[in-house]
Structures are given as structure tokens and as C-alpha cells.
């Protein structure tokens, strides 16, 4: 058995790959649902209705998609330049924490507070990713492990902060941070739901990233650096500066993810602010084939799976982890599908 590179990737497979991935992962999920003793078809139906079956369901799905769009963009931006940012989870938390801390000192109308908090969160996320990327550029340290380890360090730091200097003195029970000030809370898009203005910000950033990639010098240079570092270096692309720029953009996006979640949904920071949005963002980016506009749709899909599975697992008594299994499986099948778009098999 041999593999031959095709001259042109098969367009049908490239476009259809996400759908194929999703279908296969849902089929396998069906098998696992059967293993749990639950009725498979009814469970599929339950997933769908929990995600889309009512106005509340749709707003929940959209709300859940917002942080995924940000972390998906963060991963897409980084991976396109072959910067392996697996630290979005930590960057998310540090962004949220920075926003909460800044909220203590900023007293201004929302039109100023909200952008200020977002910018501060972006800066915090940036710094967190710039450190590992700097270590890669200067010392040759692989950023995969360093960004991963930083996730754990940051989570511990957040725990320390909200039990200590950022503690909310009025909260009883589970420790949480000082609340985001009222002026920093994102307005709701739909009354009596959790859907907030962050959706607009997320879509806006997706379009912005798309424009950057398509039309700017930085976009071209970062792609070149990712595809061939020697070719880019020969052509005079400043590799170190470009990769650090990518780190700023990617880390910043992940930081904003955390701030927006705190400002829009929870209103404060706690250690369970993110059920793995950073890692799911990687899946979102791969399902979107690293395309910023595709990230919007991939995030919606992943959010639908999570929200739908949440509802389904409650009513069918299937463990909630079915959502994570389905989503991670979609990632693997997507990879395989993309491979067969680019290569043909020879027996």
C-alpha cells in the first residue's frame, strides 16, 4: 500500500471533510450511547432539541459558542504559523483574571470600561504566550510542552488569587474573584437568556483575523514562516519578530475569550470558568481547517454538541462525557479526511 500526493487536493473532500468528520463521530457516539443502555435514535433527537429545539436552547448554544470562537481563532492563528499554542486554556484564565483585577480600578461608563477590560485581558494573554514563543525563538525550546505546563501553573495562580488578594469578600462557599463591575458587564442580546454581546465581538474578530490573513504583509509573512522557515528566512521574512507577532495575536485572542466569558456570562472568575474551552478551541480550529470564518461555524457545531449532549445526558442518563468524546473524535476523523483529500491510495 502506498500513498501518492495528488496534484490538486480533491475540493469535494476538503469542503466535505468537516461534515464527514461530524457524521462519523456522531455515529460512533451512537454506539457509546447504546453501550449506556439508552435508546440511540431518541438520544440523537434529544441532542438536537437540547441544542436547537427552543429559543432558550438556541441562545444557550450561541452563548456556549462564543468562547469557542475566540479560542478557535487563537489556535487557528497560531497553527497556521506552526506555533503550537496548546496554552489557550491558561491564556483564557489569565485574561479573565486580569479583567477582574483591572475592574477594581477602572470606574468609567461601559463604552470605556468594556474595551479597556478587553484590551487588558488581551495583553495578559499575549504575555503568557510570548514567553514560551520567545523561549522557542531564542533557546530552541519546543513550545508545546511549555504552553501545556503553563496551563497548570496559571490555574494554580488563579486559585491562589481568588482565595487571596482577589477574593470576593461577599461570596460564601466556593471561592470566587471580585466581581466584574457593572459597567464592565456585557449587555444581553436576547432578554431572559444568557446570550450576550460577546457574540458580536467574536464574529467581529473572526472577520478581522480573516482580513489580516488575506490582505496584510503580516498575514503573508506568518503563513510563509509556518510553511517553510528556511524559504521565509531566505526571502527576508523576520522570523523571530513574525512568530512573536503571531504569539501576540493568538495569546491575545485567548485572553479575550476568558474576559468575555467573565464579563458576559458569569460576572466573576472562578476555577471552573472554563470546562476546557482552550483545548476544545484546537478542535474547532482543525474542523475549520484553520480558516477564521470557518471557525465561526465549527464553534457553533462544537457548542451544539456540548449543549445538546448536556441536555441529552440529563434526560437519558448517559454520562455527560459523551460530548467530549464526540468532539475529540470529530477532530481525528477530520485529520484523516483532510489526508485523503491530499493523497491517493495505491494498492
Amino acid at each position, binding site marked *: 500500500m502506498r500513498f501518492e500526493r495528488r496534484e490538486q487536493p480533491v475540493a469535494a473532500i476538503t469542503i466535505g471533510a468537516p461534515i464527514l468528520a461530524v457524521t462519523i463521530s456522531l455515529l460512533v457516539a451512537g454506539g457509546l450511547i447504546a453501550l449506556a443502555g439508552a435508546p440511540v435514535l431518541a438520544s440523537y433527537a434529544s441532542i438536537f432539541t437540547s441544542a436547537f429545539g427552543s429559543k432558550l436552547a438556541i441562545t444557550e448554544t450561541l452563548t456556549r459558542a462564543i468562547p469557542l470562537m475566540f479560542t478557535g481563532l487563537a489556535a487557528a492563528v497560531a497553527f497556521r504559523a506552526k506555533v503550537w499554542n496548546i496554552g489557550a486554556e491558561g491564556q483564557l484564565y489569565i485574561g479573565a483574571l486580569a479583567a477582574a483585577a483591572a475592574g477594581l480600578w477602572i470606574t468609567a461608563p461601559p463604552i470605556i470600561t468594556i474595551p479597556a477590560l478587553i484590551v487588558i485581558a488581551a495583553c495578559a494573554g499575549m504575555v503568557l504566550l510570548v514567553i514560551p514563543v520567545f523561549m522557542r525563538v531564542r533557546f530552541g525550546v519546543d513550545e508545546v510542552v511549555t504552553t501545556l505546563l503553563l496551563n497548570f501553573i496559571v490555574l494554580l495562580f488563579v486559585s491562589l488569587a481568588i482565595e487571596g488578594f482577589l477574593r470576593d469578600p461577599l461570596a460564601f462557599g466556593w471561592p470566587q474573584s471580585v466581581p466584574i463591575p457593572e459597567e464592565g458587564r456585557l449587555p444581553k442580546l436576547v432578554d431572559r437568556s444568557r446570550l450576550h454581546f460577546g457574540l458580536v465581538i467574536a464574529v467581529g474578530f473572526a472577520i478581522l483575523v480573516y482580513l489580516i490573513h488575506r490582505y496584510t504583509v503580516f498575514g503573508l509573512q506568518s503563513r*510563509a514562516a509556518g510553511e*517553510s522557515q528556511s524559504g521565509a528566512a531566505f*526571502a527576508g521574512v523576520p522570523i523571530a519578530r513574525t512568530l512573536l507577532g503571531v504569539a501576540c495575536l493568538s495569546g491575545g485572542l485567548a485572553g479575550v475569550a476568558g474576559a468575555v466569558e467573565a464579563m458576559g456570562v458569569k460576572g466573576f472568575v472562578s476555577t471552573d470558568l472554563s470546562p476546557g474551552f482552550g483545548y476544545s478551541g484546537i478542535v474547532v480550529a482543525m474542523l475549520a481547517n484553520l480558516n477564521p470564518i470557518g471557525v465561526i461555524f465549527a464553534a457553533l457545531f462544537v457548542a451544539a454538541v456540548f449543549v445538546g449532549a448536556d441536555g441529552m445526558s440529563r434526560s437519558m442518563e448517559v454520562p455527560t462525557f459523551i460530548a467530549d468524546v464526540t468532539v475529540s473524535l470529530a477532530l481525528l476523523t477530520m485529520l484523516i479526511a483532510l489526508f485523503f483529500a491530499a493523497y491517493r491510495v495505491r494498492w
Partner: protein
Amino acid sequence: MMQTPALVLKGISKKFGAITANADISISLQVGEVIALLGENGAGKTTLMNILFGHYMPDEGSVEIEGKPLVLGKPRNAIAMGVGMVHQHFSLAPNLTVLENIMTGTEPLFSLRSKTEAARAKLTKLADRFGLLVDPDAFVSDLSVGEQQRVEILKALFNDCRILILDEPTAVLTQPEAEQLFRLLRVMATEGLSIIFISHKLHEVMNGADRVVVLKGGRLVAERQTSATDKAELAELMVGHQVKRPTRSKTTPGPVVMKAKDVTLIQDGHKRLDNVNFELRENEVLSIIGVSGNGQAQLAQVLSGLVKPSSGTVEVLGELSNNLTPTELTERGVARIPEDRNTEGAIGALSLWQNAILQRIRDPRFSKRGIVRGQAAETYTQDIIRNFDVRGGTPQTEARLLSGGNLQKLILGRNLSENPRILIAAQPARGLDEGAIAEVHRRLLEVRAAGAGILLISEELEETMLLADRVQAIVNGCLSPPVATQTLDSRQLGFMMAGEWGGLEHAV
């Protein structure tokens, strides 16, 4: 009585996608014979040998070794039946020792202990017998290129090969080393080995082989006994028509445009460049000639702005250029053609227009305030495609879809359409077919006549004699004094490449 041939290839055919690499090739090799497989780049010689050794599976055809059929597709079978191969790009692991490289795969995979001492003894005996001296415990990364080739040959001998294939063996050797290699091959042949070597160098084929098989465009077009033919006939058979090589007109060199003074480069504790001095003038071609691995790649990197010298200075158009980036050099009119067009010269996944303007991205024609001017870039690229006859795509096509020759034309085009003052060309014709080579040479001479100074870094004697006004040889990072090419013949140039610089008339 007809002796069974050592090797018979019958009707070998192989296609890669739309490209026919081999078409119905049949060759036989007698015991103790040395044959040369001759053809220009892309003729299918390496593909054919890779099929014989088992790296590739042919679409059609069969192979017999001493009358017995060879199961194709796995090197293991070829090795078991006595075929050994010395690859053009060595199949060695640099971080392992010589002995480890040679022992790999020679013992049953799941035995409990490697019989290192027995292997070492066998290796030493072989090395002594054939005069291939090498330290079994040295790391391959510490060996010179010539020594590494010895290890490749010893690998084949260690596996008790009776048929030895060598793919362009003298590409990395000096003249004396090449002569020594062919003497060794003769000795092996008298001891009963049968040898095939691949070459595109006519003098080598005439001197080293009993018989020559000529491939062109994937087909076998001729076979000759070397005693019954000459270089002119072979050249014509190889290319199929008279290729008109450009001639160098007389020019008067102008002022100095680039100067290197005492440039030294130390990398990983090795001195790659050792007090390099040269001066390049307008209207001339200065060739730095040397066997690969003597510091040319590093010299090209220093001059291209990719690496800073450890000491010494480089001046471009009177300005100190040690710290200039590739972009700054390009802005000052320095054109660079890299040695490896696939890893440095172009980025395969990007389009032709993106590859054409990437090194000039800050030029106001191609970007404004950080935004790329795609339309202007595509028009610019369309002009290059037209003026330089780049075939295989439009400005939007991905670069990896272009053939080697067309990619090189694009690289030439993006440099030459800017009327450079200085052109640094590293191995510009490597891996191209005769037609493309002539085209590249013609363009270089045009640029010279237009007033530029060209620094040609080359491995090929003929190319240097044809294009260069003056030549300096590079050996172990040292440059010889410059010599006017019209005072030299090929043999003298060969000695220069081997490091013998005494008794030459210097041309400053």
C-alpha cells in the same frame, strides 16, 4: 559458453502521476563489467537504480540476478541477493558511529545481543582489503564528505554485495579523490564484482566504464562500448540534438561592487570559512569553485544576509554589509539565487505571485502601509512568466506544482527583472536538463553584459570555464587567490579544486 549475466533488467517501466520516468528499459550486466548509466538530469537514471535496489516498485518489468528472479519493492530482497547501492544523498545517520551505521540491519532483529566485535573485525578486514580507511567509532557527522562516501561503499561491501550501484559518486569528490575511486572500482571488478555507476559527466564515463548505456527522457536510446565511441557522440546521444551553449563575450571589468576581507565563520565549533578574501567587479563573473561541503553553502549564507561572519568584513557597493538583512540587501540591488530552490528558493504551498514578491514585500509597488497589493503583484508575476518562459501555471498556481526548471526560471525572473548590480548565484543549474542549463547560462551572461557583477558558486568545471572570467577555488573554507580562466585548462582547474594552488598566475 555464455556466462550467466550478473544482472538482467527486462522491460522496466515506471510512471509518477503524469510523468514517465522509465519506459520499457532492458539492460544486462556481465560479471566483472563496469557500465555507466549516462543521461542528463531527469532522464530516469536514478529512478531505474532505485527500482533495482527496491526503493520503488516498477509498473512493469522484471529483474534477474545471476539467472534468479529478484522480488522487487523491498531493499531487503535486493541486499539479500547481493545488490548494494551508494546513494547520491548518503543514507547515513549522522548522530551514530560508522560501525553502527554499517551494522544496522545485518543481524537478526530480535537476537539478544549485537555482535559488535565480530562486526568490527569484519569491517576492518574489508577496509584494509580495499584501502577504504575509516575509524569505526567516529560519528558520521564528524567525517568529511569523502569519508562518508567510503562508509556508504563499506556498507555495501559488508553486506557481501556482488553488484554495486553508485549514483553520481564523484559529485562530492575532488579530482584526485575521483580518480582514486575509479581505480578502486577497477580493482573490485577484477575481483568479480559487477558495477553500475550513474553519471552525467562525459570524461568520467569514457575513462571509468567498459560500456555506457544512454538514457534520454526515460528511454534507453543507445549502448556503446567506451572503446568504440567518443565524447561528442555521447553528448549528442544524451541530449538528442546539438545544444547551443552560449559563448562569453569579452568585457572590461568595472569598479569593485562587492568585497570580502578576511571573513571567518565558526559554527558549532568548526571553522567553516577561514580568512576568505575576494573582490567582485562590475561586468564580470567571478566563480567560487569547489567540491560540495567545503564551505560554499556557508559563504552563500553569509553573503545572502542569513548568517553573520564571526570576524572580517563584507562590503556591498562600498557599504559595510555584515549586518544587513536579506531584505536590505535586496533593496540595495543584490540579487540572490539560492542553492536549494525547493527549501530556500520558493515556498511550495504559496502561489507563484506570493513567491515572486515575498522578498520585496516592503517595496511600495507591492505593499502599502502593511496591506499587500495583490493585483500589482499578480501583474508583475505575469510579466515574469512571459519574459522568462515560466511554464506550468498562472500567478495563482501553487509553486510546488512547477517543475525544477520552471521554478528556477521564476527565481531568475524575480531577480533579473530588477536589473541587479550584484548577482550571487549558488549552483544555479543544478538538477536541470540540458536545455534549461543553457537557458540559465545565457541569462547569467546577459546580466554580466548589462553591467552587473556575478558571484557564481559552482561545483561544475565546465560551467566555470564557460561562464567565469576569474575563478577562486574553495577548499576547507579557504579561498585560493583568483586566477583568470583563460589562463587555465580543465585539468589545472581540477587541481585547484583539490587544493593545489602553487604555481598559478594570479589575476587580481
